[in-house]
């Protein structure tokens, strides 16, 4: 009873506050300030605090060359892989949304799996599958694909493919089928209808999915590090020179790091801007019409073979390699590794600590994203400070998304170094927050935009105060988006390796431990690694399924 009275009082107080202009604007301003001070500016300013060291690398042409090649590798891989993602992901999304079989909902869930497997575990899994003696290589009498270029591309394809599928499934579900049907009644074959009508209308989603896959590929560090072999891309190079130079030649290390990070950031921003500006002007090839040829592509046989290829790609290149690590994990259950692990002896004590660090970190980051992200999303969606401010912040919020996370981590580290009092864990929180915040704000902004303003106004005319409107209308209607945003933030934080490696020296998160084991920085047996990855996957899966269960059927109106 007392509790209820208290709650009522708090509610009344918040209502009273929300009716006044000042507290409302203070909330929004605070959200903006926190965003600028914690998320946007540190990664940008950090680089400039060490900008003077950059000339160090100009005196080292060999190192400079190595850096440039690594950066080029990063962009080539990201551009190519994202293109393949879209080519393979669209038919998959098509199959999920348009297929008639009831098995497709299972396929829908399976498509998310590479998403939640922490990338370090994913990298190890792929290494085993494509290169290890027990994987597919066994069929070919030796290692099929050695670490290097192709394996990195396969890896990046594996973890960015689900992003494209997710975005395109959403877009296809929202798409009004009427357009495609109209095209059919006008005489277009199914394939022509899709090419000339559906795809052009879905172009913004295609571009968005490409950009997301691109950014993800550019950022990934932990898994890439595992499968890279001798090849270096940007993040791997940054990590390698840290190991090589951080102690022996710190100023050269800083110079090379500043240079590489800066180039990565500037080029990815430029590419992002280019795609944003010219992507919307890009005319897909809709002008030409080849009715008879496309008619052949629309035959049942062609459709069946397209679906088969899609499924083969998904299972053989994405799903099975992702879960291949389950094999050694399974073996580990029957040898002494399991008891070692649970007694926490040897290398396992660090592992368990890292798990606690990872999940505590992810929890805190998710909570913070929610608290500081929500007012920002509301401000952008409802244009509280006018259209221009909203558009500006809408773009700014996305900046950390396209900055390679290791570069972001490096820069953050430089920035916060000057404040010696900031403990390492807090630094980690800041880094992960910067990386995950955009995901949350994006998904919430979209959710708020979907709620018609009439809804809010109706509540106001019925006597609800602004805070009441938020609590009783906005929150319930966006519950599903909040939770799905939280899932993304949480899994992304658990997976993140690059930024973590960049900012910490002593603290270890789970992916860092896995990378160290695989790279034999810490001696670990295949059994250990398998079990370590297995536990990580099972935990992530459990959390995902719990959240799915909790959110089941809720918040969809």
């Amino acid at each position, binding site marked *: 009873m007392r509790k209820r009275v208290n709650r009522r009082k708090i509610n009344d107080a918040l209502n009273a506050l929300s009716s006044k202009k000042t507290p409302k604007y203070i909330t929004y301003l605070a959200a903006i300030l926190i965003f600028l001070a914690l998320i946007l500016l540190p990664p940008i300013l950090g680089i400039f605090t060490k900008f003077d060291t950059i000339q160090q690398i100009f005196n080292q042409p060999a190192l400079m060359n190595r850096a440039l090649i690594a950066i080029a590798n990063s962009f080539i891989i990201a551009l190519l892989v994202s293109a393949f993602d879209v080519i393979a992901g669209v038919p998959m999304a098509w199959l999920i949304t348009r297929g008639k079989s009831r098995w497709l909902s299972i396929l829908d869930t399976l498509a998310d799996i590479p998403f939640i497997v922490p990338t370090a575990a994913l990298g190890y899994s792929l290494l085993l599958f494509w290169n290890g003696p027990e994987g597919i290589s066994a069929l070919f009498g030796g290692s099929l694909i050695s670490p290097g270029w192709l394996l990195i591309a396969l890896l990046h394809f594996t973890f960015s493919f689900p992003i494209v599928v997710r975005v395109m499934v959403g877009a296809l579900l929202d798409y*009004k089928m009427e357009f495609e*049907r*109209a095209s059919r*009644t*006008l*005489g277009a*074959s199914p394939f022509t209808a899709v090419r000339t009508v559906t795809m052009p209308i879905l172009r913004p989603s295609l571009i968005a999915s490409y950009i997301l896959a691109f950014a993800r590929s550019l950022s990934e560090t932990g898994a890439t590090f595992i499968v890279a072999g001798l090849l270096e891309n940007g993040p791997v190079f940054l990590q390698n020179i840290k190991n090589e130079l951080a102690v022996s030649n710190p100023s050269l290390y800083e110079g090379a790091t500043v240079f590489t990070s800066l180039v990565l950031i500037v080029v990815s921003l430029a590419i992002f801007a280019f795609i944003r500006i010219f992507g919307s002007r890009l005319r897909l090839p809709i002008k030409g019409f080849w009715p008879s040829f496309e008619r052949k592509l629309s035959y049942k046989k062609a459709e069946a073979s397209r679906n088969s290829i899609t499924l083969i790609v998904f299972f053989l290149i994405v799903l099975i390699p992702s879960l291949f690590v389950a094999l050694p994990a399974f073996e580990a259950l029957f040898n002494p590794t399991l008891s070692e692990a649970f007694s926490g002896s040897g290398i396992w004590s660090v592992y368990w600590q890292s798990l606690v660090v990872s999940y505590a970190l992810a929890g805190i980051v998710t909570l913070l994203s929610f608290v500081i992200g929500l007012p920002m999303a509301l401000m952008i969606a409802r244009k509280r400070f006018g259209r221009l401010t909203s558009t500006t912040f809408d773009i700014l919020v996305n900046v950390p998304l396209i900055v390679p996370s290791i570069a972001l981590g490096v820069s953050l580290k430089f920035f916060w170094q000057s404040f010696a009092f900031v403990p390492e864990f807090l630094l980690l929180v800041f880094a992960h927050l910067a990386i995950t915040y955009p995901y949350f704000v994006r998904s919430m902004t979209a959710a708020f935009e979907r709620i018609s303003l009439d809804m809010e106004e109706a509540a106001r005319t019925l006597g609800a105060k602004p805070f009441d409107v938020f609590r009783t209308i906005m929150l319930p209607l966006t519950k599903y988006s909040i939770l799905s945003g939280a899932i993304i933030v949480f899994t992304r934080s658990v997976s993140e390796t690059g930024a973590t490696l960049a900012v910490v020296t002593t603290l270890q998160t789970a992916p860092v431990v896995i990378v160290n084991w695989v790279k034999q920085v810490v001696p670990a047996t295949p059994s250990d690694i398998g079990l370590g990855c297995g536990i990580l996957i099972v935990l992530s899966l459990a959390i995902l399924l719990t959240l799915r269960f909790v959110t089941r059927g809720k918040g969809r109106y």
Partner: protein
Amino acid sequence: MPDVRVVNLTKKFGDIVALDNVNLTVHDKEYFSLLGPSGCGKTTLLRLIAGLIEPDSGEIYIGDKRVDNVPPEDREIGFVFQTFALFPHMTVWENVNYGPKVKNFDEKESETIVHEVLELVKLHERLSAYPNELSGGMMQRIAVARALAAGAKILLLDEPLGQLDAKVRNEIRYEMRKMAKDLNLTAIHVTHDQSEAMSISDRIAVMKKGKIVQVGTPQELYMKPNSLFVANFIGESNFLEGSVAEANNGSLVIELRGGAKVHAFGKGLAKDERAIVVIRPEVLTVEKPSYQGKNMLRGVVEKISFEGTFIRYVIRLESEDVVIVIKPSLTERWFDIGDSITLSFESEKVHVFAYPEAGLMEEISV
């Protein structure tokens, strides 16, 4: 050009039977409407004819050709969607030219066609506009033009006027009919608005719960409804319950609830059977209480509303039944609220139906 014929057509969505063994023939060059409340299956039937969905069983013919396995693009139909479905990324010209292009028409030829149809819908000056720059009425006309340019001889219209405001709707519906007639097209028009269907159709099929209840010209449906449902759905009707007191070769005496006896004609009804007499509001005449004649119903004026051309009386009968009477205001002697009156009607102008098993309200519910 061909007839459109469906035979024993059935379509289910999960457990819901959207279309239940439907048979229908639409004649060549006919302007035909599918009319019914929402959920009656009229749009499903239209989409089946178009090939946008596939039937569970039954056959669809366009002319002599069986088309239920033919994809929509090969049925030579034009479909106008309720939302118009104009492609947002194409201009008016590109939208209208879409059909000729995907059908690989000669370029010169398609240009001529597009000009012609745009001329026809009087939107020739908006060639380079995008759909979002057009008004609802314009979009509707472009949607029709687009269907025509693709060479459609059969026009399938799914609530084509539903998105327009009342005034535009009234104008365009006559335009649509005129255009279809001028071009010798067969048109099948889906609507839930009975006045729309009545005013433009050659024939109408009234549908209910996945079945066709009655097919006929607007006059036939109004004058000779074959069921309580049609009598209620087309126009307005009073329903009076009673039982058959005498039955002699279709000539009936019905004892209404409250005891009044009236004379009417109806087939298939036997003595003592429960029945419902259906009387259109304009069929009743209002007389002074002293009036003596056939078919008298006594009551009191409860409400009067003046509607310009007509006066509408609400009369409470002695049986407590309430009936509505509509009279032309200029020729009518006026009564006041509270006046006792006698209602009368001609036996030939009313209809008698057996009392429905499911009850009257269930039977006429939309």
